[in-house]
């Protein structure tokens, strides 16, 4: 089976920080109140009056070199077959929080039930040909989801034609959520 490298590419020039993606995720994935799998970061740089603000919709980066998976003692955190998507199997999870300590992006948390949860790139939707809920819900259409290993995908095109960055690449995890700048 061909390996897919799924990514979300987010245009920071279009994102207005409305948090519809956050609401969509909570609704789609029944994330309990007080928890979130994605969130908005508003980064302001400069000194008044010369300011620049960037909105970023952030989540698990489904890293190609995922320390969370490497640190899990039970195999509960794993990389899905044939892609880079990192998932958690609640049946195997002990709630030891090793994976949480290992994630440089603080993308994981423990649910009240005692197991770890985080963004799944909505694999249950992707498998039936839909985009992740956050990507579908965005009113400014600033997000694209797809396979970077497919040169014809929208994400590949965007990454070829626009300037982009990832967050904390120096952490060495090869993140797969891209921000167009």
């Amino acid at each position, binding site marked *: 089976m061909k390996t897919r490298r799924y990514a979300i590419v987010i245009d920071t020039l279009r994102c207005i920080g409305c948090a519809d993606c956050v609401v969509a995720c909570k609704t789609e994935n029944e994330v309990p109140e007080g928890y979130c799998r994605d*969130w*908005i970061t508003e980064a302001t740089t400069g000194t008044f009056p010369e300011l620049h603000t960037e909105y970023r919709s952030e989540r698990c980066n489904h890293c190609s070199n995922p320390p969370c998976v490497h640190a899990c003692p039970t195999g509960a955190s794993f990389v899905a077959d044939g892609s880079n998507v990192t998932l958690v199997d609640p049946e195997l999870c*002990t709630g030891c929080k090793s994976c949480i300590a290992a994630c440089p992006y603080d993308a994981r948390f423990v649910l009240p039930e005692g197991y770890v949860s985080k963004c799944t790139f909505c694999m249950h939707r992707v498998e039936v040909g839909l985009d992740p809920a956050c990507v579908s819900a965005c009113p400014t259409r600033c997000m694209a989801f797809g396979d970077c290993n497919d040169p014809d995908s929208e994400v590949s095109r965007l990454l070829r034609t626009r300037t982009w960055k990832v967050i904390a690449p120096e952490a060495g995890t090869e993140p797969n959520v891209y921000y167009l700048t």
Partner: protein
Amino acid sequence: MEEFVITQKANPHIDPGLAIWGWEVPVYLFLGGLAAGLLLLGAVSVLRAETDRPAAQRLLGLVTPILGIGMGALFLDLEHKLHVWRFYTAFQVTAPMSWGSWILLFAVPVNLLLALGTAGNAFGPGFRAFADRLPALAPLEAWAIARRRPLAWLSVAIAVAVGIYTGILLSAYGARPFWNSAILGPLFLTSGVSAAAAALQLAARTHGERLPFERLDVGLLVIELLLMGLLVVTLVSGPLQAQRAADLVLGGPMTVYFWVFVVGLGVLLPLSLETFQLRGYRLPVFVAPAFVLMGSLVFRFFIVEAGQVTTWIAY
């Protein structure tokens, strides 16, 4: 200047700063280190064929209970306690926690057999009277006595592995700059053996029995001090995130915690006290070991906390 506002993200124990591990993990790391130290020094005493009820062999019987309490603390930390057995349905070669669970599983029977094989020597007639009432124990004891030396060598290996593992467990987390230094392995091992040497000073019945552990502890505390210094130096000379982590103890919010409580009261003070004692000053014998044991525990609390507050991302 850069300012961040994060909306919608307030996951418990993750935001605004990581707080996933409370008292349970440092207590476990301390007890694990202490048990490793006691196992190591006990095994060395067996290999040196020490007789006359040596303290190091007497305390071999405490290793498994101490490990048990430590693992109990770790169990309390698990968010999904019913799944604790899942540690033993997998071996994940990249996860130090997996290595640790399996090594600890081997440490218990090896320690129990070594303790049984040396109990006659360690406790004398008292143990004989006890063992005589349990005839079922006799063949096992005979087996363990006959294999005392191989068991002791195995114990040395396991003790070093457990001692180093308690440090590697944290240093393997590249995501937390304060932990991400290979020095933590030897540092935790040294600190664990030093705590064990302190416990043995408390257990010693005579001045003569205490003296070697006092000497040993002085050496270990000096090494510990050097390793702590090296830890700070590697952070200061590392990349930006490591430098930021070092700032935590170089003027940052954990400066007093580290220099006064960990280095000062936990290492320098007992080191000075033990040095004075070796030069003939008479001090209450429990004072220096008590500071060593406290220092060793406080050091674990400090490290577990320091790693959680340092991060790669700037918000």
